[in-house]
C-alpha cells in the first residue's frame, strides 16, 4: 500500500468513528428517528475489508458496517438523513439506518434486518456476474450471532458448490445483543464453520486494519480467480450495547477495558507514526477535514424536510420506472443455442473416500472386473463453472 492509501484507511476509520459519535449526540437530542447501532471498536473491519475490493465489486453491509458504505462512496449526509428519516435520504425516508444501496454505480445492496439472508443474495450476484462475464467479487458481513441462522448455512453451501466469487466476513464481536458467542456456537473459532462446506477460511485480528486489509485482499484475489468463496473470521469486540438504548451491563467491565487497549484507531495511529507514514500536521489536516465534512452534512440533514405523507402509498411496484438491463461482458451467443447446448447428463468421475473431495491426483476410471460389480461410488458434478 502507498502512503496515500494508508492515510485513506485512516480517513475512513476516523470518519466512521466521528460520524457515529455525532449520531450518538443526535440520538440523545432526539433527532434520530430509530436506533443507532454503534460499530465503535469495529471500524477496522468495515473499512479494511471494503477497501480491498475493486470498483466493480459488490457489497451488502450489515447494520454496523457504516465504514464500508463510506469506502464505497456514500457520504455522511446519506447516513445522517437515513437515520433522521429525511426526504433527502437515499430511501426518501422509506427505510432507515444502513438500509440503503445503489445498484447502478456503487454496487451496494440494501440489507434487511433478518440476519443471514444477504449471503445467498450475494452468492446470486456473484453467480449472475460470472454468467454475464464480469470479473466481480461480492462481499457481505455476518456476525457471530447471525452465523447461527439457517440461511447462513444454505447460502454458504450454495456459494461453495457453485464456486461463487463471494467473500464472507464473519465479524465476531462476541455479542449477539445480550448473548455471548459461547451460547451461539460450541466452537473456539467460528471460521471452522467454513470447513463444513469445503470453503477456505482465515482468521484475522479484527482490530488491526492492516492485517484485515491484507487478508481480505488475498481472499478477494482467490475468489476472483475462480477458486470459490472465502470466509474470514475477524475477531473483535462490540464496545457499546446492541444499540443506543442498551447499556450492555451484561458485558464484564474488565473485558471492555482489555479491548479498549486494543482500540483499532489508536493502534493504527501508532502504526502510521512508527512507519513514518504521517506526522502531526497530516493527522490534523485529515481530522479537520472530517470535522468540517460532518458539520456541513449534519446541517444539511437537519435542514432537510421529512417526506410528503402521500409518498407512503407510492413505489410498491416497479411500473416501468426502472429499466432493467444486464451489463454483458461476454458475447450473448455463448449462452444461446446452439452454443449453449449440452448433453443433459452429469459429467461424472469416480473417486474414492467419503465423497467430500476429489482425489488429489487424476486417476483413470477403474475398469470393472468381469463378474465383479464395482463398488457404488458417489459422483461429483462439474457444472456452472
Amino acid at each position: 500500500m502507498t502512503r496515500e492509501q494508508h492515510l485513506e484507511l485512516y480517513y475512513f476509520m476516523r470518519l466512521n468513528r466521528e460520524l457515529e459519535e455525532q449520531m450518538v449526540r443526535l440520538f440523545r437530542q432526539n433527532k434520530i428517528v430509530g436506533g443507532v447501532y454503534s460499530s465503535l471498536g469495529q471500524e477496522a473491519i468495515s473499512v479494511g475489508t471494503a477497501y480491498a475490493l475493486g470498483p466493480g465489486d459488490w457489497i451488502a453491509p450489515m447494520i454496523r458496517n457504516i465504514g464500508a458504505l463510506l469506502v464505497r462512496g456514500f457520504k455522511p449526509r446519506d447516513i445522517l438523513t437515513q437515520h433522521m428519516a429525511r426526504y433527502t435520504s437515499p430511501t426518501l425516508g422509506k427505510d432507515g439506518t444502513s438500509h440503503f444501496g445503489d445498484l447502478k454505480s456503487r454496487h451496494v445492496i440494501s440489507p434487511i434486518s433478518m440476519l443471514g439472508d444477504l449471503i445467498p443474495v450475494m452468492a446470486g450476484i456473484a453467480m449472475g456476474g460470472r454468467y454475464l462475464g464480469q470479473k466481480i467479487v461480492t462481499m457481505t458481513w455476518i456476525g457471530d450471532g447471525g452465523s447461527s441462522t439457517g440461511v447462513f448455512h444454505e447460502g454458504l453451501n450454495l456459494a461453495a458448490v457453485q464456486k461463487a466469487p463471494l467473500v464472507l466476513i464473519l465479524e465476531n464481536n462476541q455479542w449477539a445483543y445480550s448473548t455471548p458467542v459461547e451460547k451461539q456456537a460450541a466452537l473456539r473459532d467460528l471460521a471452522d464453520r467454513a470447513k463444513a462446506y469445503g470453503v477456505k477460511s482465515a482468521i484475522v485480528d479484527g482490530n488491526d486494519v492492516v492485517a484485515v486489509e491484507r487478508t481480505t485482499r488475498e481472499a478477494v484475489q482467490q475468489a476472483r480467480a475462480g477458486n470459490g468463496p472465502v470466509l474470514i473470521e475477524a475477531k473483535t469486540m462490540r464496545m457499546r450495547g446492541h444499540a443506543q438504548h442498551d447499556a450492555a451491563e451484561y458485558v464484564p467491565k474488565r473485558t471492555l477495558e482489555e479491548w479498549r487497549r486494543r482500540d483499532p484507531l489508536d493502534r493504527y495511529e501508532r502504526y502510521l507514526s512508527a512507519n513514518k507514514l504521517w506526522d502531526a500536521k497530516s493527522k490534523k489536516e485529515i481530522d479537520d477535514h472530517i470535522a468540517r465534512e460532518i458539520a456541513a452534512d449534519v446541517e444539511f440533514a437537519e435542514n432537510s424536510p421529512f417526506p410528503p405523507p402521500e409518498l407512503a402509498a407510492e413505489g410498491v411496484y416497479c411500473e416501468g420506472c426502472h429499466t432493467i438491463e444486464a451489463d454483458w461482458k461476454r458475447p450473448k451467443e455463448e449462452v444461446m443455442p446452439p452454443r449453449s447446448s449440452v448433453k443433459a447428463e452429469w459429467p461424472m468421475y469416480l473417486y474414492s473416500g467419503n465423497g467430500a473431495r476429489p482425489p488429489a491426483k487424476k486417476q483413470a476410471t477403474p475398469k470393472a472386473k468381469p463378474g465383479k460389480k464395482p463398488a457404488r461410488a458417489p459422483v461429483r458434478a462439474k457444472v456452472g463453472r
Partner: protein
Amino acid sequence: MAETTYLEAIRQAMLEEMDRDPAVVLIGEDVGVYGGAFKASEGLLARFGWERVIDTPISESAIVGAAIGMSYVGLRPVGEMQFIDFIACCFNQITNFAAKSHYRWGAPVPLVLRGPCGGGVHGGPFHSANPEMYFVHTPGLKVVCPATPRDAKGLLKSAIRDNNPVLFFEHKFLYRRVKEDLPEEDFTVPLGKAAVRREGRDLTIVSYAAMLHVSLDAAAELAKEGIDAEVIDLRTLLPLDRETILASVRKTNKLLVVHEDTRTGGIAGEIAMMVTESAFEDLDGPIRRVTSLDTPVPYAPVLEEYFLPSTAKVVAAARELAHY
C-alpha cells in the same frame, strides 16, 4: 397446433422466453438433468446449458436468495419450488427481501418463483397446499394462478417479463388434465386481468385455478335447472382485477366465490369486502363462498374429497343463492 397440456404450456413459456432473452435463467432443485419433478423444465438444460439451468442443493432460501441476487444484476431468474408447499421454507426471502426491495430502496426484483400447488392428487398435508394468501397479503408481490394452458403460457411469459417478483402457482391437478390448442406465434396474457369464462345473468361465480373447472361444470349443471351463472376466472390474485368482478356483480346482483384454499382468510373474504364497499346497493342476496375446510389437506382420498369443494357443493350453494 396440436393440443397442448397445461404442463407443456409452462415448459414452452420458459423455453421460448429463454430463447428470446439470454437474461432468463432457471434455478431450482432437480430442474436440470432431471428436468424437474413434474418435467416442467425437460429439455431446457440440453438446450441452454449448465449456466442457465442451475440445479441447487435442497435449500429453498438459497434458491430464492440467489435468484434475488441475479435479478439485481439485470437477469430475470425463474426459481422453481419442487412442490409449492416448500415455499414456507423461503418465506423470509420472498416477503422481506424480494417484496420490499422496490418500495424500500427502489431496487426492482424481476424474478418469478413458480411451482406446483393444489390438491386432488392425494399428496397429503405437505404436497397439496394452496399458500397463495400468505403472499396476497404481502405488498410488492404479484400472485398468479392460471387455470388453462393458454393462460399458463401467456401469464408465465408476462411474469418473466415483469419487473416485479411474481409468484406463479401452477395447479398440479391441471398439469396433464387440461389441454388446449395454442397459437403458434408468441403471445402473452396480461397480469392483473380477470377473464369472464361464461356469461350469465342470474349470479356470478368467481373462481380461479382448478376450481374454475369445477365452477364451469357447476354452471353447466345449473343451466339444466334454468339458472344462468356467469363464471369469472381471476387468473391474477394480486393485483386483483376489481373492475371485472364489480361489473359482473352489477349485472347479476349475486356473488358466489369458489376457492380451493382454506376458508378463513381466503380470497373470498377480500372479494366480499371489496364488493360490499363498492357495490352494496347492487346486491340482491348475501355473498356466499364454497371453499376447502379449515384444516390441513388430508391424505386419504375419502378425506380429501370431503375437504375439497366439488361440483355438487358449488351447485348446491349457487342454487340456494339463485333462489334467495
